[in-house]
Every structure is written in C-alpha cells, then in structure tokens.
C-alpha cells in the first residue's frame, strides 16, 4: 500500500516537471531578444455573390431545345389575326442578394422571316405572367423586366416567360429573333 502511494506521487512529480519544462521553452522563445514584436493576423473569409440564371422548357407552350448558352424556343403560328400568347421558356433565377433581370432582343421586338421575305411579326414579352407580369416590347438595348428582386433560396425561383405575338397574315416562313436575358447584381 505504501509502495503504491510512492509510485503515484513519483508519477505526479514527473508530470509537473514536464509541464514546467515546456513552459520554460515557450517562455524562452517568446522572449527571445532577437525576435520581432508579435504581429496580428486578421483572417477574412470572403463569401462571393452566387448569382446565376438558367433557361429550360416552359410549362406548356413552345417546344424548347436547350443549347450551351440557353435554348431555342419554337412555336407554330397559324393565327392570322388577334394575339397569339404562348409560354416561351422557364427562367430559373438564383441569387444570394437582390438582383434584376434585363431582356434584350436582337431585332427589337420584331420576328423576321428568312431570305427576301419582308413580312414581320411584332411581339411583346411577358415576364412572369403569374407574378410580376411585366409586359414590354423588348429592345436591342434591353428592357428591365424586374428589378430589386429579393434574394432567392439555394434552389432559385422559376418563372415563365411568355411571348405575345400580334398575329398577321404573313408568308409561310420561320420568323425569328434572339433574346438575351441578363441577371444583374448591383
């Protein structure tokens, strides 16, 4: 019994001595006369804005073929008068801060035929018909479809973009324009 207590006391003393030695080493290095004054390092973790848009097939309406940079939305127009309204594509918007959507059109709101066909179809875009419902004639310079849209969830928000074609009795042909949809973050 007395021998076990002796061994225990001896072990405790070894631990104390080891701690004292380590402390002395640390103290020596900190206070080494040749070292510079301590420096302060500030760690900044920058979280960049994560904002992007993608396009996909609409909910009903045009047939949609995805491409590397967007897609091709095709629809049949056998309406000769009045208004032809059709969903063009689904726009998925993701952003961790407020953002805006701008839509520009190469032909400035005109669908043009091919070859020497001079017939045209005028049209408007309806951004988010069931929400923002922003109807406008797109221009080459771009029109703001919606601004200061709130930060989205990680999965983004999906909106329909529809076209409203002023139907006319035009020659059989494929009438085209190219839209550029831009998400801008202030």
């Amino acid at each position, binding site marked *: 019994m007395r021998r076990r207590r002796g061994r225990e006391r001896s072990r405790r003393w070894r631990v104390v001595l080891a701690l004292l030695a380590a402390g002395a080493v640390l103290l020596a290095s900190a206070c080494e006369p040749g070292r510079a004054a301590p420096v302060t390092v500030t760690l900044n973790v920058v979280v960049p804005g994560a904002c992007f*848009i993608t396009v996909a097939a609409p909910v009903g309406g045009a047939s949609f073929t995805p491409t590397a940079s*967007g897609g091709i939305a095709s*629809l*049949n127009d056998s309406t000769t008068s009045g208004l032809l309204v059709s969903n063009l594509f689904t726009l998925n918007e993701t952003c961790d801060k407020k953002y805006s959507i701008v839509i520009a059109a190469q032909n400035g709101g005109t669908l043009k035929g091919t070859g020497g066909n001079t017939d045209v*179809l005028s049209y408007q875009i309806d951004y988010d018909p069931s929400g923002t419902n922003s109807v406008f004639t797109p221009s080459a310079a771009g029109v703001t479809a919606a601004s200061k849209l709130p930060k989205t969830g990680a999965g983004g928000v999906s909106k329909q973009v529809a076209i409203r074609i002023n139907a006319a009795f035009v*020659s*059989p042909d494929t009438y*085209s324009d190219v839209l550029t949809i831009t998400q801008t973050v202030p």
Partner: protein
Amino acid sequence: MRNFSTGSALGAGLLALGALGAALLAAAPSTEAAQTQTVVINAVVPQICSISVAAASGAGTTGGAGTFAAGGGGGTVTVTDANAGTTSFGLVAITEICNKSYSVKVSSANTGGTLKGVTGGNTDTLSYTITYDPTGSNTTVAPSTTQSTLATGLAKTTGTGVTKQVNVTVTNNGLAQPDTYTDTLTITQTVP
C-alpha cells in the same frame, strides 16, 4: 536590446503577400458579373390557303345570277335558260385566301364544256363556258375533265382573301328538249 530589423523584414513580407493576394483577387473572374442566357425564338408560320364559293351577283350578265344552294363542299347553282342563243349568268363568287402566290384551276365531270340532260334517254346537250374574274383576269374556258388554268401566279392575299366573280355562258340552240342540264365543276387552288 531588440533587433527590429527582423521585424521589419517580416512586415515587408506580409505586405508583399497582401499585395499578391489583392492582385490575384482582382484577376479572378468576379462572381458578381452579370449572368446571361440566350434564347432564339422561332415562330413557324405554315401555308394558309383556302377557297370557298358563295352566291354570285348578276352584275355584267345577260341572264342574272343563278340560284345558289350551299352544300357538298361547294354548292349547286341553278339557272333557267328560256332563251335561244347565248346567255350569261352569275355562277358563283369565289373567295380565295392564301399567304403566298397561288393558281386557280378548273375541271368538270363532262368533257368539253357540256351540260347533259338528267332525264334518261335524253341525249341532247348544251354547251357552255365559264369566265373567271370578268373584271380582272377575265379568263374564259370550256371546262373539261382535264384541268384548265383560270389564273396563275396570283399574289398573296390579305387574311380575309379576295372575292372574284365566275360567270357561266350557256349556248342553247333552241332544239334541246325540256330537261335539267347539268355538269359538275371542280375548282382547285394550287400552291407551288
């Protein structure tokens, strides 16, 4: 005495690292840049062409307009020809719609512009011609079983189309027995 030259070197190193970091950050593509997608819109407009017939007016004829009864994808026109000789009647008004250039042709069930009696055993006939668009193309043909061209290269119309008169001119030599004399015309719009 402290040696501050080591401290200065360390500070200079940190500054250099900071500058390098800033340069790298500036060179990296900004995630705040505008994001774009491009969508091509293709609106495909098909060929939209059609013709229809309705009652004609009697304008410019010697016998007035026939009686028109719509049906069977066209209609039936009845005229009364009590005159010996040649009499013209309004046959139909044809409305043509087409969003590109087109032609109009006609053929008949009987050969060579002939109206045949409906009563069995009656072999008498009346000869006739039709005149398409008398105030315009003014084309006269004796319809036959093979197609005759009434007009070709007609211009694209408006959405409501254009309406033209078709007259029929019947020659009755006065010897045909009383009967109803008939033929069936097929008017075709062709689009190249």
